[in-house]
């Protein structure tokens, strides 16, 4: 099948591999197929629900993924067989696990105590009698809930109260109405007779025996002590990464969030990016709940896939390159590359240009200085600093290394606001603070700098994840050297910023200049 996409130059695979077979995965597949892009689904279970005729590898999993955008090679295992599958781009929309949270309430699941989704599907115990029985939703009591779950709770409670004529209670802490239409749903549920009880400084006591569940609590608004003996209790389910997530994470070498979902909690990945170019995470794979959110994510993923397959996603201007003669195969570069752009070919590391985001971290970390990262080679940068020193007559000369994603835009805005840079300050724009090596720093001091400032992104906001941390550890390294030679360690300073902190940028530079002025010009 020929695709309608005009492939990126050099791209060899024009297809999309989708990991997962849920509604989110299917919507992405349908959108791509409508564009005549070949789609391959790789699904852990069976292909139920996928449109007939689709190319599906069922009961299959990916164990490894090599290459870059337009040319990924996936190792697939299916029924004990192993084979490879090419992919132009990959999207992971694997399901998480919905786990009932009954243990948090000290309850066991039973015909009376049911996971929320079962109640939402109308699955009630036989003992429930319309017009008589009592239903209780235990919602967001053990941990904070979220609007998607609250939507399910309110819809189900409304149905029970209105259609089944049950006495229906929702016990919660903060009611999460931050979703479209939820405040109205909240009102409709109350009008239908659902009673909401909200807890702040108290919590309900839940006791359970063979015969009954008893919930007792103080209604905080009235101070009245109430009890409820529900015929059915629905407990929240929480979305957790499924066991398959670990395997996918390892196969694709993805960065996860703190819970283990397949997208780092970093705003630069919004909405569907991962740390690997051409590999996306959508819907439940990145921790999103609810069909509504999945639909928007599916659209965003289809959009991203289309862009990337055509090679139209923005690319970095500079790429790292390994000098094989200098390399001692320590594999530091392989470990530090967030974007997984270093590939090991027969025990030799190589940078895949399509995957390289040009952060320069590997070059700064390589113990052998075996990685060229033009034009940010320490020698070239140091030469620039020497020239800058010669151009300046100020007694105090200072150097600032500025991350191109945060400090540079902040400085540009500061200029537009009318800021004047201190005349003795020389600023060097770098793609990522992590690209600054000890050699860069030493070069600045050797050129006569009285102080050096390094500004990177805030932790968790760094596009290359650890750039600022790398920079900080190199500064520590240098400070240890300074301590040994009795040079003031605070002549080198690190700071973090976001791109919208023009005022913060001005403050940081001022504080830095004042501090260095306090030390005076360095000895020649």
């Amino acid at each position, binding site marked *: 099948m020929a695709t309608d996409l005009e492939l990126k130059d050099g791209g060899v695979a024009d297809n999309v591999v989708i990991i997962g077979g849920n509604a989110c995965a299917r919507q992405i597949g349908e959108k791509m197929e409508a564009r005549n892009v070949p789609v391959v689904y790789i699904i852990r279970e069976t292909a139920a629900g996928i449109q007939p005729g689709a190319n599906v590898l069922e009961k299959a999993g990916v164990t490894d993924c090599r290459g870059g955008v337009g040319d990924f090679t996936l190792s697939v295992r299916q029924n004990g067989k192993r084979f490879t599958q090419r992919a132009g781009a990959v999207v992971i929309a694997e399901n998480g696990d919905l786990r009932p949270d009954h243990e948090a309430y000290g309850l066991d699941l039973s015909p009376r105590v049911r996971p929320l989704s079962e109640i939402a599907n109308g699955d009630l115990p036989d003992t429930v009698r319309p017009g008589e029985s009592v239903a209780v939703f235990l919602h967001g009591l053990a941990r904070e809930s*979220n609007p998607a779950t609250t939507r399910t709770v309110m819809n189900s409670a409304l149905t029970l109260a209105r259609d089944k004529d049950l006495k229906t209670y929702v016990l919660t802490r903060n009611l999460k109405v931050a979703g479209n239409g939820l405040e109205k749903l909240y009102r409709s549920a109350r009008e239908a007779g659902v009673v909401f009880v909200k807890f702040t400084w108290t919590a309900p006591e839940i006791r359970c025996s063979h015969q009954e569940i008893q919930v007792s609590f103080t209604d905080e608004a009235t101070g009245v002590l109430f009890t409820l003996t529900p015929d059915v209790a629905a407990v929240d389910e929480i979305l957790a990464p499924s066991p398959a997530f670990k395997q996918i994470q390892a196969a694709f070498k993805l960065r996860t969030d703190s819970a283990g979902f397949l997208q780092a909690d970093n705003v630069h990945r919004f909405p569907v990016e991962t740390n690997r170019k051409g590999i996306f995470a959508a819907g439940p794979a990145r921790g999103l709940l609810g069909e509504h959110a999945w639909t928007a994510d599916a659209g965003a993923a289809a959009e991203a896939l289309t862009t990337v397959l055509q090679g139209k996603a923005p690319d970095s201007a500079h790429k790292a390159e390994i000098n094989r003669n200098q390399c001692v195969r320590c594999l530091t570069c392989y470990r530090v590359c967030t974007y997984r752009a270093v590939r090991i070919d027969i025990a030799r590391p190589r940078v895949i240009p399509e995957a390289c985001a040009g952060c320069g971290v590997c070059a700064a970390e390589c113990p052998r200085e075996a990685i060229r990262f033009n034009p940010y080679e320490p020698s070239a940068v140091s030469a620039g600093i020497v020239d800058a020193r010669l151009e300046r007559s100020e007694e105090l000369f200072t150097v600032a290394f500025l991350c191109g994603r945060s400090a540079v835009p902040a400085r540009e805005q500061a200029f537009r606001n009318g800021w004047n840079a201190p005349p003795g300050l020389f600023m060097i724009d770098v793609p990522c603070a992590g690209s600054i090596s000890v050699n860069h720093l030493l070069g600045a001091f050797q050129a006569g700098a009285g102080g050096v400032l390094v500004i990177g992104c805030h932790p968790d906001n760094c596009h290359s994840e650890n750039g600022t941390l790398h920079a900080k550890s190199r500064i520590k390294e240098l400070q240890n050297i300074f301590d040994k030679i009795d040079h003031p360690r605070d002549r080198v300073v690190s700071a973090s910023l976001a791109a919208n902190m023009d005022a913060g940028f001005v403050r940081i530079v001022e504080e830095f200049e004042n501090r260095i002025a306090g030390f005076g010009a360095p000895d020649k």
Partner: protein
Amino acid sequence: MKNLAGKRIAVIGAGVAGLSAAKDLARLGVDVTLVEKSDTLGGRAAGYGCKATERCVKCGACMVVEAVREVEASPAVEIRLSSAVRAVKRNGGHLLTIETKNDSGAESAEERFDAVVLATGFSPYDPSEKPYGYKIFPNVVTNLELEAMIRRLDRVARPSDGEAPKQMAFIQCVGSRDGKLGHLWCSQVCCGSALRMARWVISRRPDTEITFFYIDVQTFGKDFELFYQTVRDEIKMIRMLPGDLYPAPADGIKAVFFDPESRKEAEMVFDMVVLSIGITPGRENGGLASMFGVPANGDGFLAENGNGTDGVFAAGAACGPMSIPDAIQNANNIVQNVVQYLEKG
């Protein structure tokens, strides 16, 4: 991709939604004209500060700068600042009369587009009618004004004397969750905005005492549970909205409220009170809806898919309360729909 080269799209509004739509369409090779009423790019969120404390708290505000920079650098996006659409004609495509203000007045031109994306955003609620003395007491400010302080000054200053407040209060849900105003919705972003700002203030000045008056705290961000725990240690959380605010000595503000735990009337004096005003439909939504033939819902927000079949789409907070990440996701999804529409045509 099918014949997208040479297609022309007008994106109306250059907030984060419009910028995201423009940059995504431009990446796909579509010619985009970005029509923005004001004289800057970025919309409301361009005025928000960074609330990172020891680490980024994912407010998303810096993403706006990133989007502005990509759009400014993109040759496929033509930016029209100080411009607005005055008339629309349907004639095969969409014939828009775009008026641009300049030093000598304004000039308009008629231009043809294959599709239109309305990303005109929201209007913040005006709290003057609430009993909180807004614009009467100098140190009662809105959350938007506090955001702007963080952005422009990199610190918080009382309007009356420029000093850092020691006792601050946030009052939530001002103009949201308000059936009387016809605002039967939660604005979705103000709990997050307020709590992030509160923690930022404390991180800068640990001796600041902050009180937070609220109905329900809304979840935001992936690590909300952890964040919320810290918040409850650092901030006095009172689940009750104060009734009236009164002037107190030294330009202070006295809040009178019913203390829910002791069940007694209580009062507290603050140096500064922040009103968490919410998101309401853009003032021009009605006019835009009729000019472009896009349905608006009962609340006054535009229908998300615009009138889809006719090539007019809507995205971002023009369609309802939405955070920055949501607006980006929404714009991405809308671009997908626009592309499908163009592929058909």
